[in-house]
């Protein structure tokens, strides 16, 4: 057991931090980039590719680096610190993760090769506008209203996905769709392919999303036919959730340090705000929240690295719940303790809070994870972090 990064991981962190700081250390630069389509810098995307980061989680034989969830987390956290708008999380970890998990060797070599090289941006088109049986099922791993059929041996998709993060810029869409025989399949569709129409828009965190409509759009089935990919989606979502927790961690760290800096320098009533204990104690509580989130997140990354799928999903949910709570707390307090200045679009802190909110909703919010976890509390006595399991004996 070791919660510290080894030398290689520290080197990775420093390298990514260097790149991220050069790109967006000046928040004005980030503002300029997100103001224009596609909402991120193609140049920075290429630099990420050159550093090997876009292929980080994928096997070497398909052009990747073969690194694990801890390294992916390190990258996500560094990008989170500067609010880098590049779609590392949704394109590489989530959509790429799905291709890595479900694709045939040829599909992996082709798609992940292009992704790793920075030649293709991917998007996962999964969320359905109020998919049946209703909003409560919104983070379900299944597709319902987007359907797939293969009338004459070619798969065709129909229906609408919205919102799809970076759905307009994406060269290749990974689409979930209900299969004729039941279950959910995964498909590859070129973004500009026939039967695909896309409407893009800006999102409140400075990102981009799109409505993507499929009208008999020809699609390539990802992986072997006849497989229900719901479990793959659960697993890939767990990977992405833990990466999202890391990104949130980066954003929370900066929100806290910006707040403590501000309390030290902002003067009201002739004294620095840090003179008021009511405020310094609240900063201390933010720190408590941050460290709780850090522990849960690092733990979840290690559970993921162990390769046990069932434990991974639960660990991702636990980290997700903690980060949801911490993120809301830290984001809201960072604004409050800054006062009016944090409400402005020009200032970093409010933007951090917006991004924390988006990350929270990406793959199941605190409420969602709490529901999942609450369903199981009767099944065990106490939780053991090292095995990640409850001990049933104790409960009996």
């Amino acid at each position, binding site marked *: 057991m070791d919660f510290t990064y080894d030398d290689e991981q520290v080197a990775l962190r420093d390298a990514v931090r260097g790149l991220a700081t050069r790109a967006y250390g000046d928040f004005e630069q980030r503002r300029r980039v997100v103001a224009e389509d596609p909402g991120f810098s193609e140049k920075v995307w290429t630099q990420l590719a050159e550093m090997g980061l876009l292929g980080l989680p994928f096997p070497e034989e398909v052009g990747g680096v073969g690194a694990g969830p801890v390294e992916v987390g390190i990258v996500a956290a560094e990008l989170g610190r500067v609010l880098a708008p590049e779609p590392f999380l949704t394109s590489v970890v989530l959509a790429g993760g799905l291709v890595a998990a479900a694709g045939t060797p040829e599909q992996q070599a082709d798609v992940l090769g292009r992704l790793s090289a920075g030649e293709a941006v991917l998007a996962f088109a999964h969320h359905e506008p109020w998919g049946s049986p209703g*909003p409560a099922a919104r983070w379900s791993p299944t597709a319902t209203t987007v359907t797939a059929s293969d009338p004459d041996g070619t798969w065709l998709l129909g229906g609408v996905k919205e919102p799809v993060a970076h759905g307009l810029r994406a060269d290749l869409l990974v689409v979930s769709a209900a299969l004729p025989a039941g279950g959910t399949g995964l498909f590859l569709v070129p973004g500009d392919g026939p039967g695909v129409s896309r409407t893009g828009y800006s999102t409140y965190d400075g990102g981009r999303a799109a409505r993507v409509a499929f009208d008999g759009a020809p699609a390539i089935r990802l992986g072997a036919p006849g497989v229900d990919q719901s479990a793959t989606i659960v697993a890939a979502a767990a990977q992405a959730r833990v990466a999202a927790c890391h990104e949130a961690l980066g954003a929370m760290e900066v929100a806290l340090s910006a707040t403590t800096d501000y309390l030290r320098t902002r003067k009201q009533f002739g004294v620095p705000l840090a003179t008021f204990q009511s405020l310094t104690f609240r900063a201390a509580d933010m720190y408590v929240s941050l460290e709780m989130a850090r522990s849960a997140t690092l733990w979840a990354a290690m559970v993921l690295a162990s390769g046990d799928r069932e434990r991974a999903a639960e660990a991702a949910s636990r980290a997700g719940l903690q980060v949801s709570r911490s993120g809301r707390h830290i984001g809201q307090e960072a604004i409050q303790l800054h006062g009016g200045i944090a409400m402005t679009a020009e200032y970093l802190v409010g933007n951090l809070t917006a991004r924390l909110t988006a990350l929270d909703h990406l793959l199941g919010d605190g409420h969602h994870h709490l529901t999942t976890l609450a369903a199981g509390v009767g099944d065990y006595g106490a939780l053991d972090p090292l095995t990640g399991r409850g001990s049933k004996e104790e409960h009996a």
Partner: protein
Amino acid sequence: MQLELSTEDEAFREEMRTFFTTQVPAEIRETVIAGRELGRDGYVETQRTLNAAGLAVPHWPVEWGGRDWSDLRRHLWLEEMQAAGVPAPLPFNVSMIGPVLAQFASQEMKERFLPATANLDIWWSQGFSEPDAGSDLAGLRTSAVRDGDDWIVNGQKTWTTLGQYGDWIFTLVRTDPEAKKQAGISMLLIDMTTPGLEVRPIQLIDGGHEVNEVWFTDVRVPGENLVGEVNQGWTMAKFLLGNERVGVAPVGTVKRNLARAKRLAGNQLNDPLLRARVAELENELLALELTALRVAAHSAGGEPHPASSVLKLKGTELQQAVSELVLDLAGPAAYSSGAGAGSDLPEWTHLAAPAYLNLRKASIYGGSNEIQRQIIARTILGL
């Protein structure tokens, strides 16, 4: 102790409800209820409708359009107005500068400004805060220097809400730099078309433009625009800020939004966790409304009841919590914030995240919630 309203008060409530739901255009009320932006004209039209019926400034002195209602009736008036989605009369006019002028201004100034203020013929902006004077308002530096009969104003105000619509701005300015902080401040009324006055937009994190910076470069203001006596501005500011606190507990609005959230939730309400969250909010809101009623029923009039800080503090927290609930109801669909017509997601999901982010302001302005706690600690608890 008695729970029911008297027959007269009940009839009064009914009368208000009928007026608000039939006399204010449905289009305006729908805009407010949906949380869409209401432009200048919507405010103006509403306030003129209210004013014509004697419902815009009921708490002003009777000779300037006030109604001499009990605090309970004022409460019912406000609640029914918010419940119906009627945009409240512009607070800068009716809760802030109006009462100050009625209390402190010369007869001439009252005649000049009060009727126009009640009817929103003049749109007022509040020019108090400055970059270095927020919670510590007395730290303000914008200066006004005598030049014959006139004042020459230099400096910068910030956070001026809806200043882009403003005709006039009421300001606190430093008229005696030698005096102790609070003692050298005066209140000046400034025509926003005066040369040297510039309004610059500030964009907020929800993407909207509702606040501004106002810059003054050698702005010449006639001497007669001084309210009350020179260097007496702080007294008026305290009076104004006390009123500001009373008006900001949006109980009726929060109630309406919470009821709406339940409708929007649809089948998510089958989820026991969500039901528990809603029930908690409803119960807190009930306690807050009852507190507001207690304050209204017991207030002697004049000075704001000390517990009005509770209303501001808790009211804004609940307002924020309800916006957070709506955000979570939208969940991943909230990511469609920038979608326009043609989106498959309902409009309320587009608005959920910007509304949540925007409402973080509620605990900052109007005397931040920390300042409210300080008032409770000092004034009520004697600490």
